[in-house]
């Protein structure tokens, strides 16, 4: 066998190492869209805006919610709530594929909160609103305490 010329082995080996390094960097770089995709899909999937929307609508109802600023049952408020609740339930089911509903302490005799009073401190009475949202992927429940000044 002819004698092997082993000059420049380091140069050749470093060339190979650099080539392998470039392969590795290319693979890492190719993962970048995947990272963006999973992040973006998670953001889209979580119905943040819908929940904030429903929550905001409930808070903005203020003293038109039953039980607030009321000491006696109020038929007009009950009618308003039935309208509001029915609209949210049907429209969220038909367009957002979500079950959305809420509960609030109503004003009538025999209701625990009416008979015993709701949460409160020396400045505020707190009315509890339970918000339920479930679109099959995200299940969200919140107990919102809406303060009313004493």
């Amino acid at each position, binding site marked *: 066998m002819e004698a*092997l010329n*082993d000059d420049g*082995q380091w140069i*050749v*080996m470093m060339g*190979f190492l650099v*080539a*392998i390094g470039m*392969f590795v960097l290319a*693979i890492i770089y190719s993962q970048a*869209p*995947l990272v*963006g*995709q999973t*992040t*973006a*899909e998670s*953001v*889209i999937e979580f119905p943040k*805006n*819908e929940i904030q*929307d*429903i929550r905001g*609508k409930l808070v*903005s*109802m*203020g*003293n*038109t919610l039953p039980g607030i600023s009321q000491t006696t049952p109020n038929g007009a408020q009950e009618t*308003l709530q039935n*309208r*509001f609740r*029915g*609209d*949210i339930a*049907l*429209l*969220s089911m*038909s*367009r*957002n594929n979500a079950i959305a509903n809420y509960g609030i302490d109503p004003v009538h005799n025999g209701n625990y909160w009416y008979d015993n009073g709701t949460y409160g401190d020396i400045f505020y009475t707190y009315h509890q609103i339970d918000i339920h949202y479930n679109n099959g992927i995200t299940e969200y429940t919140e107990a919102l305490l809406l303060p009313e000044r004493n």
Partner: protein
Amino acid sequence: MVMNDEGQLYTIEGITAGVIMLVTAFTIFNSGLVYTPGDAHISDMQIQQLGYDALQMMDTPEDMSPMSASPLALMIQNNDGSGFKTKFNEYLTLHTGTTELVNSLEFNATVYNRVTSGGGDTVNSYVFSHSTDSAVSQLTREPAISITRYVWLSDANDLKSHFGAAKYDNDEQLVLLEVLIWRR
């Protein structure tokens, strides 16, 4: 015994060739799924958030007393689709000076409302507003993004005169505004 160190380069070359073949095979078998920015929903997420923000701004009442009507609610109550188009377009195109090529969002807005007359609970819908039809959009466009907003109408009298009792309850009510946004 002196170690025979001949053929080192051949050995390294052999190992390297093996590694390169492995990497090549790995790359080929992983390239079944090629992600492009359009597949990755990144721009979808941004358009969705932009749309929700725009609707939220329009649905903020000037008078913050309970159940007051927002500008968006007044537009729906008066069936003012052209007013919505102007304002919504204005919010969508609030930008830092991009060109028309980048700034190319189009939309179609539909209102869904619950009808109780006749005893049942049915959903009525109608086209509320849409952007100016673009010739480009007839040929190609990117997938549309759906955004929704509940709007409280404190007075639906005008709508009842437009659509009739079978299509609209003559009552204060909550309607769902759904806007599809896409990039042409």
